[in-house]
């Protein structure tokens, strides 16, 4: 008997393969392009080490800030309804839809002396253009929505009745948060942290406007590409891809283990 091939299934398989190839071919080509010597030479290059180190540090700081400021906010969004909540949630998503150079230009505009905020910062001796602090601010801006949305979903998945029972047994709000809510949300907090981190480490358009020096890895890759060509930018690109992949793998491993509530 002839087997029946569902035409929709065929289309699905074709699109599946196309998408996978679309993603994998450029990445594989990138990973295989530079020679082994070029990669080891790049690992030893102090400029490259500095750039990748700076990227890791600034992205980590951005994720940390997102964790500290974003966690209470995410909890509020998960548990409370209030007038204008939809608008607030829309605002949180704004950094995702605004083009990256626009973000950089906007931040540059407010940290200069022409703006009251920038004038205040300058008078305090705080400089943000071309500084590590400036980069961290930009990265926090672009990474925060990823953290908040992930953690908000994590909190929402915890039934509020668990917190109610805890309160009825005598635990204060604070006690409930640390004994019940946080342990159950722990996994999504880690996932949110990593998502924010990964987003920050790949940011280019906003960073390059606010700070060309000191150079993060993506800025260095772009500078090497435009100044010297493909050959000299590929090794750094490979190293950055490897760092990003490690984050990605860590993310998948942690989020795979399910919490049965």
């Amino acid at each position, binding site marked *: 008997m002839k087997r029946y091939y569902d035409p929709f299934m065929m289309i699905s398989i074709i699109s599946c393969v196309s998408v996978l190839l679309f993603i994998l071919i450029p990445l594989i080509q990138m990973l295989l392009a530079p020679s082994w010597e070029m990669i080891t030479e790049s690992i030893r290059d102090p400029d490259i080490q500095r750039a990748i180190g700076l990227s890791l540090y600034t992205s980590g700081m951005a994720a940390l800030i997102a964790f500290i400021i974003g966690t209470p906010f995410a909890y509020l969004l998960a548990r409370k309804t209030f007038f204008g909540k939809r608008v607030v949630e829309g605002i949180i998503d704004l950094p995702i839809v605004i083009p990256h150079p626009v973000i950089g230009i906007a931040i540059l505009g407010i940290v*200069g002396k*022409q703006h009251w905020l920038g004038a205040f910062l300058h008078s305090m001796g705080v400089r943000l253009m071309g500084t590590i602090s400036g980069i961290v601010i930009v990265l926090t801006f672009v990474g925060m929505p990823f953290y908040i949305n992930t953690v908000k979903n994590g909190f929402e998945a915890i039934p509020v009745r668990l917190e109610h029972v805890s309160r009825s047994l005598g635990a204060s709000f604070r006690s409930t948060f640390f004994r019940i809510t946080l342990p159950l949300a722990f996994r999504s907090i880690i996932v949110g942290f990593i998502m924010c981190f990964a987003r920050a480490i790949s940011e280019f358009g906003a960073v390059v406007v606010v700070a060309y020096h000191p150079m993060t890895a993506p800025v260095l890759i772009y500078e090497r590409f435009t100044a010297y*060509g493909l050959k000299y930018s590929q090794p750094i690109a490979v190293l950055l891809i490897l760092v990003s992949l490690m984050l990605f793998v860590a993310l998948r491993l942690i989020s795979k283990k399910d919490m049965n509530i």
Partner: protein
Amino acid sequence: MKQLQIIILLVIVMLTGIDMTQSMADLSGKLIIFHAGSLSVPFAAMEKHFESKYPGLDILREAGGSTKMARMISEVGKTADIMASADYKVIDKSLIPSHASWNIRFASNQLVLCYTKNSQYASEINQTNWYQILSKKGVIWGHSDPNLDPCGYRSLMVLQLAEKYYKVQGLYDRLIANRPKRNIRPKSVELISLLQTGNMDYAWEYLSVAIQHKLKYVKLDDHINLGNYQLDSYYSHAKVSVSGKKPKSTFLRVGKSCTYGITLIKNAPHKETAVNFLNYLFDPDGGLAILKNMGQPPFIPCRVPTSTMKDKLPELLKKRVVVKN
């Protein structure tokens, strides 16, 4: 039979129609121009004017540090029809002979120190005390990347010449010590937005750019502003090391007056359009007039250094240049 007659009639009408539109606009399609950042404003005006004469034409410009733009053509392999550089030497070194065969010098410029009314010490700065103010701690001043932009290494040359001219020993090192790396940007025009937002107090730019963006500026003595070609031998005292074809390799650039060069790239995809545009650019009432009105002194007429080079030019352009070194 009747159907066939109608079809033939339609075809004739179409052909005559095409003929008519063809004679109204000879040039159509695209034209890709890479140019120095400092030419952005005048080239935008030329683009507008030229496109209005040929509505079917779309001019695509890409601006950046001239060194970087030239490398994009020679190393990265990007496609362009015309390359206009703030330093004609960039074309000589990076594009001739593999990507271009001639180089026309069409304009000059000089370096000035730009600032805004909100810059620190804005009310005090002048031609004699500028280097003292730039040495003051807390004053934020910068220039473009010498490795990517001629304005960058020219800024450094100005500082070296200042040390020699004002006879202040160690001035160059002192000034550089007060200019941290974060105040360097790949393209000199980026410095303008930093000035305007108050993120920077002073920036080194071309006079034409300062005028075009309505910035305040300090004009310097001819001995140090790289604007007078008669002082070329004095300028040659300034030497700046910039990066070469590979990272970590360097070569020395020697000070010379700011002379802008332009060329047609070999294998340009839109050669005829490019030559027509250059013809317009070199017209004293066309492109050169725009440059003049925007504060950038053009060479009228434009120059090539040798008659050999003049012979290599397209016919249309030969009448626009003279041989002068």
